[in-house]
C-alpha cells in the first residue's frame, strides 16, 4: 500500500484532491523542500511537484533520483508547461549517452 502525493501552489493542485492524491499546498521553495524531506521518508511511491517549485528545489529532488521509490515527477502547474520537465528527460539522455541525441539539445 503506497500513497501518492502532490506538492504545489494552491490553485494548481486543488483539483487533484478529488482523484485521491494527497495534496500539500505551498508557495515557497523552502516550504516545499521541508515537505519533500518529510514525505520522502514516508510511504509515498510517487510525488508530483509543480515545475516551478521543482526547478527551485532541484538539488533536493536529485537526491531521490537513484532511489527506486519515491518517483518525484515534475508536472506543469496552472501557468502551463515551462519546458523544465522536458529538459529533465533530455538531461537523463545526456547522462546516459554522454550527449543529447534525442531531443535536440534540451529544447
Amino acid at each position, binding site marked *: 500500500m503506497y500513497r501518492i502525493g502532490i506538492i504545489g501552489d494552491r*490553485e494548481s493542485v486543488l483539483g487533484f484532491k478529488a482523484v485521491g492524491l494527497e495534496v500539500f499546498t505551498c508557495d515557497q521553495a523552502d516550504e516545499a523542500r521541508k515537505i519533500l524531506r518529510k514525505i520522502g521518508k514516508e510511504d509515498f*511511491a510517487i510525488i508530483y511537484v509543480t515545475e516551478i517549485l521543482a526547478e527551485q528545489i532541484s538539488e533536493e529532488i536529485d537526491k531521490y533520483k537513484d532511489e*527506486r*521509490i519515491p518517483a518525484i*515527477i515534475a508536472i506543469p502547474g496552472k501557468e502551463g508547461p515551462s519546458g523544465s520537465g522536458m529538459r529533465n528527460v*533530455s538531461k*537523463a539522455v545526456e547522462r546516459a549517452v554522454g550527449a543529447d541525441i534525442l531531443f535536440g539539445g534540451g529544447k
Partner: protein
Amino acid sequence: MAERLNVNPTRMNLTALKKRLKTATRGHKLMKDKRDELMKEFLELARENGRLREAVEQRLTGMYQNFSIASAVMSREIMEESLMIPKQGVVLDVGNKNIMSVNVPVFSFETTASDAGDIYPYGYASTSGELDNAISGLTDIFPLLLELAAKEKEVQLIAAELEKTRRRVNALEYVMIPQLQVTIKYIQMKLDENERGNQTRLMKVKDMMIAEAIEERRSNM
C-alpha cells in the same frame, strides 16, 4: 602510452598478471554487451517518455483551463469546500521489473470509487458544470500521469546504470587493459634479457675455463 604497473619482474607476477588480463578482457566484453543492450532499451524508453510527457502536459493545460473557468464562476470558498473531502481514493501497488539487472518499479493502481458517478465529491447544488468538467478531465488524465511517473523513474534509473556501465567499460578499455598489457610485456622482456645475460655469462665462463686448461697443459709439458 599506458603507465606500467609497479611490480617486480618475476615469473610469478607474470602469471598473475596474465590471469588478470584474461579476467579484465572477459569483463570488458560482458560490460560492453550490457552497455549496448541497456542503450537499446534506454533510447526506446526515453523516446516514449518524451512522447508521454508531451501528451500529459498538453492535457493538463486543458484541465487547468477548465479549473480556472470553474473558479471564475464559483466562489473560492465553495470550490474548496466541495473538493475538501474526496470520495475517491487510490490504492497504489508497487511491483518490480528487472531490466538488465536494474530494478525498476511498476505502478499498478486501483481507484476505490465503484462507479463513474462517484468521482464527484460534492452535491451538484452549489457547484457549476465547469467544475464537473474539470474533475472528469482530471480523472481521465490520471492513468496517464501514473504511467508518466513510472516511465520517468525507469528512464532515470536506467540512465544512472548506463552511466556507471559506460564508465566501467571505458576504464577497462583505456586504462586497465593497456596497463596490464604493458606490464606483461615489460616483465617478459626483462625475463628474456635475464635469460640472455645468463647465457653470455655461461659462455664466457666456459671460454675462461678452456683457456685455463690449455694454460695448465702447456706449463706441464
